[in-house]
């Protein structure tokens, strides 16, 4: 879109509008004039199908000979009106354009189209999920005819409960054939899962994929559907829209920090308490736009799951038994006090900033610095603080002339919204480079796919940097503020540069965003890869610029917050060598890794703050002495910091599970027993204290985080739901803290090399963990509706390795690694690189290491022993 502003008249009034903008959007935003729509969606290409947006369009007449405007006697320009009405949604703002939206023809056309749509519509609004937030209802009230002349018994009768896959149900009678659902899946996501079948009045939505509706984004179709034709099995017939309160919240799943709204209502089936009935996206153009992944949408059931721990537990006579909070806190405080500075903390991915702040306060009080992050495989995050994507950047701004690099990450599995945004950036013309040791779905959209061998990601980045240096694709003025450039140049001398074209495209791109994951990396490798990415961003002059920078694909919703507050993965690993006396597991499923399961046995006492009392959280460790039930994100206020360093606030949606407390409060109670000041009374006050102590967060008070940045186009805020059921940004759009590169100071580049990596012995393979979106962690598995989508435990084995080992696709195998035995099904596929077995995490409850290690894969000939 050009930023050129032109004059366009609507109903006689002149307005200034950006040239080339979609007329429907421009009229709404710049003139406050509603052009009603059904099929148009501001995030998709217009198709002109529903014909609801018909307007009268004219142009100022010009004299053929002179080119001068032809004037009316009163001096106003003469307008030549079109022969027919035109669809506003397929019209772009042009200078000298005149629009009429109030003529009789337009009014009649709207009424006529609505009458047509209603002639086939079942009008079962009283039992329709969309009733109350339905564009068809709203526009009928505003523009429609009062009665229908279509005889009811002549309406087309169609299927009303047609499952499109296991999550979405189609009501064919309600469908108005706008194709928004098809277009969302095909255009926005790139999953060809839906299509029209048949034609004329028999035109019908079907799923064309196997398994049906196979996508991570399907729930969004129910939002954009302008009627109640698509419903999710989660919400279907669950509540009426107006009965629910929409509580602003943040997804607890993954690093994106999707802005969501939790629709809560008192619920009879849950014993009359408030519960989440549905999760909707909340618009935030700098984060998730108006989309959320199905994991975020459906993975909310853990918040009031009966599996949640309801009361504190205390070990008495060798058994963990229910206890009162005061006894449990007393026991925990006693253990901490006795350990003194030999207290270690491992904080999990859903710990909020408030929780982490109180945990670090407790550690500080006893003089401990053992603040660990779970998972333990992550490298040094400092490059993120230095060159992380600039605050206020939008992936939606990337297009022609820009570039995106995704390295060592399967974005679709690890951060689905970023997958979608990287794909759309490529669609808009951005140069996408995908580098990994394995194939990922994003490869389809890439201009360059760089397939490297295990552990060679750092070499790839070094090669790109070396190419940029030797071809002078560096940025002169940027180099003036760089330390270590000469050393880097020297160190990279002679580095192979096999990906010159990709290097050039990225180096010369106007904007460059680099996603760095931890696929196949141990902590040293991850540290090196982050650093190597930073080097490239710095020398090419991208660091510190808006819409540029590094995005780490962290595993957790608040991994970045933990780093910001001084927790680290390195500290976690250090505990293996030097076990603390008391280990506090704060929402960290540490026993899911055999090395840490062993650690639990090596410490004196484990205090576990957890939502779920399970083996991963230390339930089976004899050293676990106190277990404290903590609240989920839906039961309390708090903040998460996304991997783009955006601190975002979520609000209490419903009451607590059992006697659970927010983790910060539980920690505060322990601290109080140890003589610390009384803990703050509210989450807001904890954050207040945090802002005073942590400089990066000095702005992040609750009132500031509640501020709403203007959204464009304002989809969620629209009263007639023209972009779907998405909620407005109300509740706050959060604040990102700026990277150092955004300041004026010096930046440092530093040569790094790939670490040793794993050296498998004879007969061994590398066993490399990978993350899958859908797994069997209790935070997700409690969503029973998703069970059919979660893969059975498997390991991907390369075709060549498999044939060497005599393993066929579908064989039961056991993977032996680091003392663990993991029973899985072999998936033989060239998608795994040769010599590397990809072992998805958390698909079974068997512990497995979180870092790549050498191991073996063996076919099981005996039946698997029942456990």
């Amino acid at each position, binding site marked *: 879109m050009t930023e050129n502003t032109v004059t366009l008249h609507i109903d006689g009034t002149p307005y200034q509008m950006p040239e080339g903008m979609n007329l429907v959007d421009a009229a709404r935003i710049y003139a406050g004039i509603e052009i009603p729509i059904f099929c148009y969606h501001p995030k998709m290409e217009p198709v002109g199908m529903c*014909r609801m947006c018909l307007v009268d369009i004219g142009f100022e007449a010009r004299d053929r000979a002179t080119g001068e405007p032809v004037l009316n006697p009163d001096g106003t320009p003469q307008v030549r009106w079109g022969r027919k009405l035109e669809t506003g949604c397929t019209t772009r703002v042009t200078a000298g354009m005149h629009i009429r939206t109030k003529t009789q023809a337009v009014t009649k056309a709207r009424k006529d189209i609505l009458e047509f749509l209603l002639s086939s519509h079942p009008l079962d609004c009283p039992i329709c999920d969309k009733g109350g937030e339905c564009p068809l209802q709203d526009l009928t009230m505003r523009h429609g005819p009062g009665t229908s002349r279509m005889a009811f018994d002549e309406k087309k009768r169609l299927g009303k409960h047609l499952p499109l896959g296991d999550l979405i149900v189609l009501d064919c009678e309600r469908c108005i054939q706008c194709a928004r659902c098809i277009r969302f899946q095909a255009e926005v996501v790139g999953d060809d899962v839906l299509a029209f079948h048949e034609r004329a009045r028999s035109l019908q939505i079907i799923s064309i994929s196997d398994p049906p509706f196979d996508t991570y984004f399907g729930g969004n179709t129910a939002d954009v559907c302008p009627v109640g034709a698509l419903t999710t099995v989660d919400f279907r017939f669950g509540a009426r829209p107006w009965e629910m309160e929409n509580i602003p919240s943040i997804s607890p799943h993954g690093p994106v920090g999707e802005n969501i709204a939790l629709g809560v209502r008192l619920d009879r089936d849950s014993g009359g308490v408030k519960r989440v009935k549905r999760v909707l996206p909340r618009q935030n153009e700098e984060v998730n736009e108006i989309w959320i992944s199905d994991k975020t949408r459906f993975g909310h059931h853990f918040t009031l799951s009966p599996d949640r721990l309801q009361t504190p537990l205390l070990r008495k006579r060798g058994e963990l038994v229910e206890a009162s909070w005061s006894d449990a806190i007393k026991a925990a405080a006693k253990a901490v006090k006795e350990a003194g500075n030999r207290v270690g903390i491992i904080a999990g991915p859903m710990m909020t900033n408030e929780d982490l702040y109180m945990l670090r306060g407790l550690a500080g009080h006893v003089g401990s610095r053992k603040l660990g992050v779970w998972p333990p495989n992550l490298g040094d995050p400092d490059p993120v603080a230095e060159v992380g994507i600039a605050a206020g950047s939008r992936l939606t701004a990337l297009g022609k002339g820009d570039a995106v690099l995704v390295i060592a990450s399967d974005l679709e599995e690890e951060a689905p919204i970023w997958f979608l945004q990287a794909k759309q950036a490529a669609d808009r013309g951005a140069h996408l480079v995908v580098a990994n040791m394995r194939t990922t779905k994003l490869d389809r959209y890439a201009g360059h796919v760089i397939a490297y061998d295990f552990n060679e990601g750092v070499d790839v980045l070094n090669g790109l940097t070396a190419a940029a240096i030797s071809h002078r694709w560096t940025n002169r003025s940027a180099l003036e503020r760089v330390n270590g450039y000469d050393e880097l140049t020297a160190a990279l001398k002679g580095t192979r540069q096999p990906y010159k074209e990709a290097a050039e495209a990225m180096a010369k791109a106007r904007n460059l965003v680099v996603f760095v994951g931890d696929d196949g990396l141990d902590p040293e490798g991850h540290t090196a890869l982050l650093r190597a990415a930073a080097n490239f961003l710095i020398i090419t002059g991208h660091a510190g610029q808006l819409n540029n920078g590094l995005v780490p694909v962290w595993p957790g919703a608040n991994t970045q917050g933990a780093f910001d507050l001084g927790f680290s993965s390195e500290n976690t690993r250090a505990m293996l060598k030097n076990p603390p006396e008391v280990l506090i597991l704060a929402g960290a499923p540490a026993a899911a890794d055999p090395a840490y399961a062993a650690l639990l046995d090596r410490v004196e006492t484990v205090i576990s703050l957890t939502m779920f009392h399970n083996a991963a959280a230390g339930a089976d460790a004899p050293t676990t002495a106190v277990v404290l039930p903590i609240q989920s994100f839906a039961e309390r206020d708090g903040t998460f910091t996304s991997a783009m360093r955006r601190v975002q606030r979520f609000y209490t949606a419903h009451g607590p599970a059992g006697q659970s407390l927010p983790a910060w409060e539980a920690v505060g109670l322990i601290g109080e027993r140890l003589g610390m000041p009384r803990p703050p009374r509210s989450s807001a006050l904890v954050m207040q204290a945090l802002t005073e102590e942590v400089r990066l967060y000095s702005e992040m008070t609750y009132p500031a985080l509640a501020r709403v940045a203007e959204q464009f186009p304002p989809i969620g805020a629209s009263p007639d739901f023209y972009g779907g059921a998405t909620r407005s940004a109300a509740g706050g759009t959060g604040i990102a803290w700026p990277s150092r590169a955004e300041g004026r100071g010096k930046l440092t580049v530093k040569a790094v090399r790939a670490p040793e990596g794993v050296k498998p012995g004879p007969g061994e393979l590398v066993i490399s963990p990978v993350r899958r979106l859908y797994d069997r962690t209790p935070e997700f598995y409690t969503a029973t509706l998703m069970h059919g989508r979660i893969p059975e435990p498997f390991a991907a084995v390369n075709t060549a390795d498999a044939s060497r080992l005599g393993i066929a696709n579908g064989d039961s195998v056991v993977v032996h690694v680091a003392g663990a035995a993991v029973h899985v099904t072999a998936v033989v596929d060239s998608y795994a690189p040769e010599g590397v077995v990809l072992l998805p995490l958390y698909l079974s409850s068997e512990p497995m290491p979180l870092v790549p290690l050498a191991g073996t894969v063996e076919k099981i000939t005996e039946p698997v022993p029942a456990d």
Partner: protein
Amino acid sequence: MAEHILLRDLDIPDIRRFEVYTRHGGYEALRKVVTTMTPDDVINEVKKSNLRGRGGAGFPTGVKWSFIPRQEPIKYVVVNADESEPGTFKDRQILEGNPHQLIEGALIAAYAIQATAIYIYCRGEFWDLTHALDRHIEDARQAGFVGENILDSGWSCEVHTHLGAGAYICGEESALLNSLQGLLGQPRVRPPFPAQKGGGLYYEATVVNNVETLTNVPWIINNGADAYLQIGTPESPGPKIYCLSGHINRPGNYELPLGITFRELIYEHGGGIPDDRKLKAILPSGASGPVLPATDAVLDTPLTYEAVAKIGSTLGSASIILIDETVNMAWAGSKMTQFFAHESCGKCTPCREGTYWSRRRYDTLLAGRAAEKDIDILSDVAGQMTGLTLCALGEFAVNPVVWTIKHFRQDYLEYIQQAAAEEKPAARGKGKAARDAAAR
């Protein structure tokens, strides 16, 4: 006309064969343009001939070609052989009897716009013709008229055929392009038009022409635009294949100049109406154009784009269906509405819903359950579609309703009066048609 220009198979039975075609001057026009004319020369000659598209709209062919941006590296010619209009069967005879002339015409068009490939989109039922066409194309390729470096000119052009799957809408050019690309056969939003980058086949600039249109082209090149302008009228020059069907003694294709009158065509060439019954109505362009009552004024109207437009209809593809006095025109309207309700692609609301609703109204009418207000509803529904649809099919669909009501309201009232008289509608229908309808 002494000799046929288009249906040359009537003069030379074996002309479909490559050797016979070439023996009778075939591919000389192509040789002429490729070796002696620039692409612009070709476009100008066709422009000058004022050849108008025979697919229905009558758009000047040379002008259409001149819209193609020259500098685009990839351009296509698409031949519309979907021939699905009720009562149209002329393209079929060309494909069957004189295919090389079509191939030659398409190649000349391709040369004129410097296209890289030609796609011939044939209606699904033409599978046998299409396989034969593939062999004819192969023959032309063997002789160096198709493929790489045609006649050593440095210009290369492939010719492909493609079979549709039985949808009227795929004759509409943008739906045809979608179908050719393997997408759902639904029309596209325009602009961009097929001739523009972004609007054509695979989103490249594309000329879409009807079979008959292109079959005219070799003759124009061989004989010159001036000779062509001698045939027909200045505004509608050239020969036209008229498809006569319905109540006519000698149904079939007639290649005659544009500008002869309905009367000449029907009574001299077609042999008049069977049993000398009275001609009641004429559909000059299949189901798509407005029906005309068979008045003397109509019968004396020349068959040209402009004259037929003046009397309130369209010449379209000149698929002329004749209807005699035994037919109730409300029944005829219902038949055509059924056709459109079946063939609407469903993409846009007014056509999808309007055709369905109209069909249901006709069902009521023919079942003797309608009142006079239902005629008004039918008119209203048609009015609600007019001007609001995405493509022309929706506009076509309105015609049978509006014009049968306008010219033959009495036929509608008959059904209603029958109902009012509480007689069994089947007992007194005018002819078989009404009885059939009532029996349903």
